[in-house]
């Protein structure tokens, strides 16, 4: 039974409030990405296009880092695919919680599935029905925010200085720690986090590239599967 809420305002406001801290935390990264892209020869219009159609920060950092002149679509497309493989896990998980979405809304919603949007949507779905207004408000706000700050970074360029000097490089890690603790459900969650973190740190030390994310996800989910067999 699908029912459109008469007043989507509450979901919309909740989506904006939930994503707001993440929008603040990504500001230094947007500026840094734009400035780095500018140094690599990308114009403000080109970085706007990239943020507008890709909208995936970590893969944009990797792509700008690998950027050559002329750009190689095959190398950049493949690198982006590998960095973003985790999104398949995320949309597989969230896909089970989109009962209030039409098929078109589902395929529209996954476009906005940045890490932070996914995290707040999962958090919402844990407590109540996840509605389109919540997800599109959170996703749309982070999207507009990302466009503004990446283009601003490209326009301001070198004038920005080094974000590490003020600790802003740690904002991303701090935000993710906050998001992880939002999923705390007791000691079992601690074991899932520990397994994931240990595998990610180990694989990151041994293998170049973004494989540590998939290794950590596999270890954390594997730990949960083992515990499920013991408890139930």
């Amino acid at each position, binding site marked *: 039974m699908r029912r459109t809420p008469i007043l989507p305002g509450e979901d919309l406001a909740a989506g904006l409030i939930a994503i707001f*801290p*993440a929008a603040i935390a990504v500001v230094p990264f947007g500026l840094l990405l734009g400035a780095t892209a500018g140094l690599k020869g*990308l*114009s403000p*219009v*080109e970085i706007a*296009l*990239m943020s507008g*159609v*890709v909208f995936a920060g*970590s893969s944009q950092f990797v*792509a700008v880092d690998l950027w050559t002149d*002329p750009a*190689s*679509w095959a190398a950049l*497309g*493949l690198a982006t*695919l590998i960095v*973003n493989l*985790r*999104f*398949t*896990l995320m*949309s*597989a*998980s969230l*896909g*089970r919680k989109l009962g209030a979405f039409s098929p078109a809304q589902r395929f529209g919603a*996954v476009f906005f599935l940045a*890490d932070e949007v*996914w*995290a707040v949507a999962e958090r919402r779905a844990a407590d109540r029905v996840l509605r389109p207004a919540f997800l599109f408000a959170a996703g749309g706000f982070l999207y507009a925010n990302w466009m503004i700050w990446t283009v601003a970074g490209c326009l301001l360029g070198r004038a920005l200085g080094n974000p590490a000097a*003020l*600790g802003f490089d*740690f*904002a991303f*890690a*701090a*935000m993710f*720690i*906050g*998001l*992880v*603790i939002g*999923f*705390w459900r007791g000691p079992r969650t601690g074991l*899932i*986090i520990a397994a*994931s973190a240990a595998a*990610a*740190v180990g694989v990151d030390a041994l293998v170049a590239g973004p494989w540590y994310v998939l290794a*950590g996800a596999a270890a*954390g*989910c*594997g*730990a*949960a*599967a083992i*515990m499920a*067999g013991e408890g139930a």
Partner: protein
Amino acid sequence: MTLDAATSLAILAMALATYAVRAGGLLIAERLPQQGRVRAAMDALPPAVLSAVIAPTALATGPAETLAAIVTVVAAFRLPLIATVAIGVASVVVFRALIG
């Protein structure tokens, strides 16, 4: 204000790769078992993926970052997200100044 052809093509390839992995999960979501170990593994995905993304930065960068990560975890259990981020950033500045 320029838009280069090779650059546009590369950005398009990035966009297609990203949307493909984001939409891909929708296609497998309905085929996954709704109970048992697979269900437990899927339920663990949010903390497992998010922990994996930041674990190397938080734990393998240096002692200042590791200590700041511990402070941030403590803050995250008690405070809203925006305050947690502020305390994390402030604590990494303090620990870097104290121990480098």
